[in-house]
């Protein structure tokens, strides 16, 4: 395989908790991202999945240095992003872009679509009005909108259309790497598919590399080449999507996969879900050792004391769990993985008997 395009090493993002009356002092830290490492290869999609508060969005922002990482190293296409000074960082920004979750707030309500999409170009030095207009028109058509939409304002569009505008803006500088921060979670199901298909076809056409952040495991499976499962600021499991989905080994990944309802009633009603007990601990006071041990049925003494490291259990499949290779508990975990996958696979033989004509264009014309 080629060299990784994006390399994240020991990334930490801690937000200080301050308290004080007149002068504030730091009394603790929210460990939103705590020692996370992974790579993304050129042209592929890494799906970063986890529940709310697990630090997945923060990871995306730290990689792009929208937050200043507390520690760690991020390298994109050979450039160490974390080492760039302000000026160099601004010059580098065109190569890494972001599509935001909330398309309503991420577009300035006072600006026309033309201004929004051309702003990156203007910042990077294009002044020729005609060139700008042509580029905006081209981008709008690329994302399935019409060129004359450029005179309108964000509030005149629906959620899915606004998300397309956000994508057009991200694309305007021909970036190679895009962080998609839950770009579809605020959209209706039928619109989600439009946006995901658009992202996929753009990736094919333009050779983009994606970090796709989501909480929807099925969507991550659908779009990703590799998957990283995050829990409480740490990576639980990481690897090629088919490896993870055919053999989820981290107990957290297992419970996540088991909890996703499958839209096939016969299967879903017979499923025996793994129910996690309790709630996610606060990231301000993460448990010692393995952060998942408070909710893990396999937790042993070691898990309470020692932080598990990523281990390669098979090629391209890493798990951070002490118990996976434990001689007694390990087989139980593997067996449970098999059971979960079997249940899910039972659904693959069935499906709706009708087919809906897939729209062939990326847009919605």
């Amino acid at each position: 395989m080629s060299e990784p395009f994006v390399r994240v090493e020991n990334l930490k993002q801690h937000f200080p908790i301050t308290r004080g009356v007149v002068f504030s002092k730091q009394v603790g830290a929210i460990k939103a991202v705590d020692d996370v490492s992974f790579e993304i290869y050129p042209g592929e999609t890494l799906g970063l999945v986890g529940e709310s508060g697990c630090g997945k969005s923060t990871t995306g922002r730290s990689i792009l240095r929208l937050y200043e990482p507390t520690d760690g190293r991020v390298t994109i296409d050979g450039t160490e992003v974390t080492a760039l000074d302000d000026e160099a960082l601004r010059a580098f920004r065109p190569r890494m872009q972001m599509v935001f979750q909330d398309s309503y707030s991420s577009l300035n309500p006072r600006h026309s679509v033309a201004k929004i999409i051309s702003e990156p170009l203007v910042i990077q030095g294009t002044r020729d009005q005609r060139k700008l207009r042509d580029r905006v028109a081209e981008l709008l058509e690329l994302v399935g909108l019409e060129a004359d939409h450029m005179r309108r304002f964000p509030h005149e569009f629906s959620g899915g259309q606004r998300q397309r505008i956000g994508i057009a803006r991200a694309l305007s500088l021909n970036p190679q790497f895009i962080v998609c921060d839950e770009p579809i979670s605020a959209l209706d199901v039928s619109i989600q598919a439009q946006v995901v298909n658009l992202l996929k076809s753009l990736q094919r056409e333009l050779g983009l590399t994606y970090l796709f952040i989501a909480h929807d495991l099925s969507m991550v499976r659908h779009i990703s080449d590799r998957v990283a499962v995050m829990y409480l600021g740490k990576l639980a499991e990481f690897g090629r999507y088919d490896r993870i989905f055919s053999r989820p080994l981290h107990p957290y990944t297992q419970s996540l996969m088991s909890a996703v309802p499958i839209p096939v009633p016969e299967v879903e009603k017979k499923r025996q879900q793994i129910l996690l007990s309790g709630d996610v601990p606060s990231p301000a006071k993460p448990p010692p050792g393995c952060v998942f041990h408070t909710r893990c049925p396999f937790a042993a003494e070691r898990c309470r004391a020692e932080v598990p490291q990523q281990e390669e259990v098979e090629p391209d499949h890493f798990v951070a769990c002490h118990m996976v290779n434990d001689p007694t508990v390990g087989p139980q975990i593997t067996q449970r993985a098999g059971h979960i996958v079997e249940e899910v696979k039972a659904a693959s033989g069935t499906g709706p008997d009708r087919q809906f004509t897939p729209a062939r264009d990326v847009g919605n014309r």
Partner: protein
Amino acid sequence: MSSRINALDPSQTRSWLGRTLHYLLRDKAGAFGLVLFLFVVLSAVFAPYVAPHSPLQQDLHSSRMPPAWHEGGDWEHPLGTDNLGRDMLSRIIYGSRVSLTVGFFGVLISMSLGLVLGAIAGYLGGRVDAVIMAIANLFLAIPYLLLVVVVAAILGRSLINVILIFGLTNAPLFVRITRGEVFRIRKSGYVESAVSIGAGRARILGHHILPNLIGPMVTVATFEMSGMIFYEAGLGFLGLSVPPGVPSWGNMLAHGRQYITFSPWLAAFPGLAIVVTSLGMNLLGDWLRDVLDPKLRRTAS
């Protein structure tokens, strides 16, 4: 095609200004406020053409004449005369010049100060923010009217001083509001996305933060201008505003107070002028708040 455009916007007007006007015409109270406000402003600007007499012209033969519709009144002096026989209507029209000047420049000064300091505090945060806000909060801790009276007594009576007093004492309020808004906008998605495309500080301030400050600033400015007109009259009433010879609503009120038992109109009309001006600006301000506050409008739609 049109079916794909969000149906929530009924106006179909594209520009921001067009939408704003559309909303103004739909709100009768706001439009009425605008009319009242324009009425006062125009009469102040064109005072020499509108006023029937000179505001300083004395006529001791017809002193303290009641309004025209009262017994002993005369349409020569529609609102009557004061104890020196000066025409009340003309003095009120000229008096609006003082009020509006104080209101306008007072707001201009305090808003400029507030914008600069508030933007610095909100954008830089940290220690600078702490110092600026500590000072602003000190000023805000002293009851406002008391502060104004004390400062006015110290500085002495002149139009410039009055403007300065309001401009300076009101600045902390603008600082606080600006800072809060800048803080909010700085955390907003569109500023974050501007950072992500490589926008520098100047661009973010100039293209994203300041334009989005206009709405709240204009709204607050309207209310504060109305407040300053109020308080200027109050200072005049205590004899602390513009020099006694200048026709101003506050001076007229202070003057009329001495004759309150026998010639109540001397105090009533300048006060009514204040009420009308203030009403217009408050209606306008309410309307502006409804239209310019994106948070409110989003929930309404």
